[in-house]
C-alpha cells in the first residue's frame, strides 16, 4: 500500500465518521431547538438592556408557535441577522462602537499598568501595608485602651513597669464595686493581662525602633 492510498483511505474513513455524526445531529430536533433559542437570545443581546426581556420573550413565543423544524430556525436566523440595525434603531450602540469602547478601555488600562505597579510597590514598602507592621499597629489602640482603663482604676504607678503592684491595686480598687465571683474573674483576667500588656509593650518598643529605621 502506497502512502497516498493510505491518506485517501484515512480521509474517507474520517469523512464517513464526520458525516455519520453530522447526519445524526441534523436529524436531532433538539439541535434545531437549541440553535433557534441561541439565535433569539443572541439577537436580543444587541438591544438596549431594558428592552431585551420583552423582545426575547416575544420572539421566543413566535418561534415556538411555528410548526416544523426549519421555519422556526429561519425566523430566528432572520431576527438575528437584522438584530444589529434593530438594536441601533432602539438606541443600542453598534458592534463597532462597542468594539472601539472595549479597545479604548483596554488601552487605558494598559497605559495605567506602570502606575498601578508603582502604587502597589509603594504600598508594600509602607509600614501600614506590611502584614507584620499591621498586626503591631492594630495592637496599639488595644494597648492604649488597656493602659487608660488601668490608669483610671488604679491612679498609681505605671502598670507596665511593675505588674505585681498594678495587679493588686486593680483588684483592691475594683473590689469595692463588684461581687465575689466578679472579683475572682477579674483577678484571673488581671493575671492574663499582665502577660498580654507586657507583650504589647515589647511590640510597641520594637515598632518604634523599626519606625526609627524607616525614617
Amino acid at each position, binding site marked *: 500500500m502506497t502512502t497516498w492510498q493510505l491518506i485517501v483511505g484515512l480521509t474517507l474513513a474520517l469523512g464517513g465518521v464526520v458525516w455519520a455524526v453530522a447526519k445524526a445531529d441534523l436529524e436531532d430536533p433538539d439541535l434545531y431547538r437549541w440553535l433557534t433559542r441561541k439565535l433569539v437570545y443572541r439577537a436580543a443581546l444587541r438591544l438596549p438592556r431594558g428592552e431585551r426581556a420583552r423582545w426575547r*420573550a416575544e420572539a421566543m413565543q*413566535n418561534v415556538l408557535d411555528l410548526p416544523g423544524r426549519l421555519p422556526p430556525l429561519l425566523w430566528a436566523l432572520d431576527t438575528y441577522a*437584522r*438584530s444589529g440595525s434593530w438594536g441601533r434603531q*432602539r438606541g443600542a450602540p453598534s458592534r463597532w462602537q462597542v468594539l472601539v469602547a472595549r479597545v479604548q478601555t483596554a488601552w487605558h488600562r494598559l497605559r495605567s499598568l506602570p502606575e498601578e505597579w508603582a502604587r502597589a510597590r509603594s504600598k508594600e514598602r509602607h509600614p501600614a501595608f506590611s502584614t507584620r507592621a499591621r498586626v503591631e499597629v492594630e495592637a496599639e489602640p488595644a494597648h492604649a485602651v488597656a493602659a487608660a482603663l488601668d490608669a483610671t482604676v488604679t491612679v498609681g504607678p505605671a502598670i507596665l513597669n511593675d505588674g505585681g503592684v498594678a495587679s493588686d491595686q486593680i483588684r483592691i480598687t475594683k473590689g469595692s464595686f463588684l461581687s465575689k465571683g466578679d472579683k475572682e474573674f477579674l483577678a484571673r483576667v488581671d493575671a492574663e493581662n499582665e502577660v498580654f500588656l507586657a507583650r504589647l509593650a515589647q511590640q510597641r518598643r520594637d515598632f518604634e525602633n523599626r519606625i526609627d529605621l524607616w525614617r
Partner: protein
Amino acid sequence: MDGPPRITMNVLKVLRLLLEDPTAERYGLEVGLAAGLRGGSLYPVFGRLEDAKLVTSRWEDTDPSEAARPRRRLYRLTTEGVEYARQALAEARQDLALRDQHAPGWGRTAGFPAPGGASA
C-alpha cells in the same frame, strides 16, 4: 408621542393588516405571516409604531399551561394609529397610482394593495 415613524413598505404592510379590523388584537407571528415579514423586519416595525403611540401591545391573559403554548404579545392600533394608518395608506396608494400612470410596472410591491383595491 415620538413623532410619526418613517414610512417604509414594511410599516405600510403592518398598518394595512392591523387596519383590516382596528378593534381586533393580533399577535406578531400572525401579522408577520400575513404580511410576508419575518422577525428581523417585523419587530423593528412594531417597535417604531409603539414608540410613536400608533400601536399598543400587551401580553395575552391566558395561562400558558392551560393553553399549552406561551403567552402571545397582542397588538392593536390606537385611535391615532387608525387615523395615521388610513392617511398613510391613502398617500401610498396615490403614490402608486401616480407611478403606474407614469411608469407602469414600477413601484409595485408584493403584498401591497393596488390602487384599485385588489392586492397586487
